[in-house]
């Protein structure tokens, strides 16, 4: 027998971080919910504006709250499922403190406008490198623990953890490949259509492998523990695992229906998304059926209540996801708040409630108090949290449907019924208020949990008992249980191998071989990824060249970077879909070839404001400046933040040079602009400033950031209607 102790201190640390960052992430979410309902509360402060805070909210919710939540679960359950202490206490601590450092870095940089603008991948390159390094530390520690385990069979929860670790590493590295232009600015190596595919391959699978697979592992461990009975069907869990891992990775392109993404990729994403319904519901059924014969416990045990609601929301979200991936449904739902409601039914209902259930189950055990400080407060949290979710998602489903239907409504004369976009925004105000109240209720409920956990922590013993566990080590040599004798009389060589294959002996072996298992998970994930990504990158006909599309001028590039820093993509798309109501509202639909110099793409995923792809030349410079200075001067009902600082802050003309050089490195034909970008930018700024003054606008903006942003906005979507220019002698852009 070997004796050892579990390391529960690391689980306590991660659990505390989960609660702390959960409150922070939800608080930021509540702030931006109120900003939409009442824009003035941002007080015109740059770091409080919606575009900068929304990425902070999503990153905090995903990587800080959910991330720390499933790390708590992994550190607690892996040791017990492997019947061993973690591979290295030191690596556990490096992982913990490194991850918290990354979160703090994100919390500091995102409000400052330091962002890559790729959703859920906004963090700039130095932080990306830190994420990868810390993830490697985590992976080494986890795999090391699997290798030194004392339980021969790897329980299915561990499979889900393996899939998480491998796939997130692949997704994160490939989506974040970029070339730095400075310590705080980089450009994605992908542009336009390719970048969009990479981003949503990442974005969708971040949901799959950061918010789903680790939580399924959590479900397969903590639900049986809380219910006091094993999982309903272990066989179903195996089918659930492989089909989920294999199918999920293909589904990303459903985020790009009717965009400039090639039709075949979009259809492929849809088909696999619909197929995804089956394994998802297999998992949900397995979870709920685990409670067979134990439903009486649910009424009495708040932990089980949280788990039941979480699994129910998982079922609802994973039914709705495939529904939303169907093209015709997507044409209505995409860019509307329907997507936001879908996401929050998943994150609040599934992820947060799984975490809450786990916290309430773990707290008395980790702090060795035997029970929570107040079980009544736990009950109140459950009901308040549930009401908060319902207020949030029902109001935002209504908002999304209203938006989608108003955008496509035509009157009896054949014209758009709501041609002024702001009409469709102001109609949503009651829903936005209800959402803000629902979010606040959910936040307050979470604060109750924090209070309850702190009070329970205060009841802890002076020193924690560390029980010594006794389990035998695994025998060095393991012989598989003998299978049935071969029925083939002269079965040798190839015949034996074939028989072993059809007997599926290999899978039984994988289940106890962590490295081989990890390799096969990697292969399953890569098959889907490569068969989608390679054709999109290599087939030229996917992105037909448009001769009149030229690179952005140095000043426009600087303006584009301001657009990215202010997070404009959080509210505005740059993608006119080939739908009649869209071309009527915005103009000609967007073509793949129009985005070949967009590093990174700015198609967006949501329209709180109108699409901007054809906004170039639609308004005067003066209109743009005054609109940015205070949108409500132009349109009283606008919910857009004001950006007065753009009229005060100087543009760093010299800094444009390094950005143009990186663009040239990426293959953008800048020609002479590489060597004299600052001068070219100054000259264009002078011209725009003169035009602005001629229009009756401000006279002192020539060197300000707003001029660069105006230059960019006035360029958007205009190349398509210009004649193709003749190439200059240097092969660069005219």
């Amino acid at each position, binding site marked *: 027998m070997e004796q050892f102790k579990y390391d529960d201190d690391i689980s306590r640390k991660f659990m505390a971080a989960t609660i702390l960052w959960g409150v922070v992430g939800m608080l930021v979410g509540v702030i931006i919910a109120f900003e939409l309902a009442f824009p003035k509360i941002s007080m015109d402060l740059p770091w409080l504006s919606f575009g900068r805070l929304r990425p902070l909210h999503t990153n905090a919710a995903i990587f800080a709250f959910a991330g720390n939540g499933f790390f708590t679960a992994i550190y607690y359950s892996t040791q017990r*499922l492997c019947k061993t202490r973690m591979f290295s206490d030191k690596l556990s601590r490096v992982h913990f403190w490194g991850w918290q450092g990354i979160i703090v870095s994100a919390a500091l940089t995102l409000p400052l406008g330091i962002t890559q603008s790729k959703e859920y991948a906004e963090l700039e390159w130095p932080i990306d490198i830190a994420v990868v390094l810390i993830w490697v530390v985590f992976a080494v520690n986890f795999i090391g623990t699997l290798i030194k385990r004392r*339980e021969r069979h790897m329980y299915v929860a561990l499979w889900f953890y393996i899939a998480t670790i491998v796939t997130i590493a692949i997704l994160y590295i490939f989506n974040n490949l970029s070339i730095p232009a400075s310590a705080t600015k980089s450009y994605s190596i992908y542009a336009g259509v390719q970048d969009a595919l990479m981003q949503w391959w990442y974005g969708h699978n971040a949901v799959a492998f950061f918010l789903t697979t680790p939580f399924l592992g959590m479900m397969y461990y903590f639900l049986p523990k809380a219910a006091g009975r094993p999982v309903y069907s272990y066989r179903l869990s195996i089918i659930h695992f492989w089909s989920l891992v294999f199918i999920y990775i293909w589904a990303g392109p459903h985020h790009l229906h009717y965009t400039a993404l090639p039709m075949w990729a979009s259809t492929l994403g849809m088909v696999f998304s619909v197929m995804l319904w089956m394994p998802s519901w297999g998992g949900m059924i397995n979870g709920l059926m685990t409670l067979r014969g134990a439903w009486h416990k649910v009424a009495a045990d708040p932990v089980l209540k949280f788990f039941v609601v979480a699994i129910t929301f998982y079922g609802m979200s994973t039914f709705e996801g495939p529904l939303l991936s169907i093209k015709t449904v997507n044409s209505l739902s995409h860019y509307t708040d329907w997507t936001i409601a879908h996401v929050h039914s998943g994150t609040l209902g599934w992820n947060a409630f799984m975490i809450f259930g786990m916290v309430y189950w773990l707290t008395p055990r980790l702090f060795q108090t035997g029970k929570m400080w107040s079980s009544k407060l736990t009950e109140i949290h459950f009901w308040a949290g549930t009401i908060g979710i319902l207020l949030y998602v029902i109001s935002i489903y209504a908002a999304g449907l209203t938006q989608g239907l108003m955008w496509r409504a035509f009157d009896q004369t054949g014209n758009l019924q709501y041609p002024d976009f702001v009409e469709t925004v102001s109609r949503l105000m009651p829903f936005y208020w209800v959402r803000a109240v629902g979010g606040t209720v959910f936040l307050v409920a979470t604060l109750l949990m924090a209070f309850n956990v702190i009070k329970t922590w205060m009841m802890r013993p002076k020193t924690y008992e560390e029980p*010594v566990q006794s389990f035998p080590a695994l025998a060095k040599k393991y012989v598989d249980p003998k299978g049935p004798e071969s029925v083939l009389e002269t079965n040798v060589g190839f015949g034996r191998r074939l028989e072993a294959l059809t007997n*599926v002996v290999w899978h039984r072996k994988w289940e106890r071989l962590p490295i081989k298992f990890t390799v096969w998970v990697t292969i399953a994930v890569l098959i889907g990824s490569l068969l989608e990504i390679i054709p999109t990158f290599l087939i030229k006909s996917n992105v037909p060249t448009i001769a009149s599309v030229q690179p952005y001028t140095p000043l426009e590039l600087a303006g584009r970077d301001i657009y990215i820093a202010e997070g404009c993509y959080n509210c505005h798309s740059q993608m006119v879909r080939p739908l009649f109501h869209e071309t009527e509202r915005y103009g000609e639909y967007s073509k793949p070839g129009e985005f070949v110099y967009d590093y990174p793409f700015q198609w967006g995923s949501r329209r709180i404001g109108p699409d901007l792809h054809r906004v170039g030349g639609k308004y005067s410079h003066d209109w743009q400046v005054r609109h940015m200075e205070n949108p409500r001067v132009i349109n009283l009902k606008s919910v857009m933040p004001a950006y007065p600082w753009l009229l005060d802050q100087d543009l760093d003309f010299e800094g444009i040079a390094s950005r143009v050089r990186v663009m040239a490195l990426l293959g953008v034909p800048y020609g002479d602009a590489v060597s004299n970008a600052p001068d070219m930018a100054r000259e264009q700024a002078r011209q725009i400033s003169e035009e602005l003054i001629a229009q009756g606008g401000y006279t002192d903006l020539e060197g300000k950031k707003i001029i660069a942003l105006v230059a960019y906005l006035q360029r958007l979507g205009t190349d398509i209607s210009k004649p193709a220019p003749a190439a200059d002698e240097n092969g660069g852009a005219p």
Partner: protein
Amino acid sequence: MSLSDLIGNMDLAAYPKAAMVIFIGVFLLILYRVIFKMKKEEARDAAMIPMMDSVVTPNTQSASKETVA
């Protein structure tokens, strides 16, 4: 002929079809394994792992994290 030309000239429909065949093949094998080749006891034992993850010895040791008794 470059790789881009080679893949560019292929029928795009082949990719999703190939993927579908791979998926269905693997799926059927896994299904076969769990339905026909997995013994009831094997599944039951595996499902019980979380329920038996703690065996505390009566003689509580105070010092080392991992010892061989």
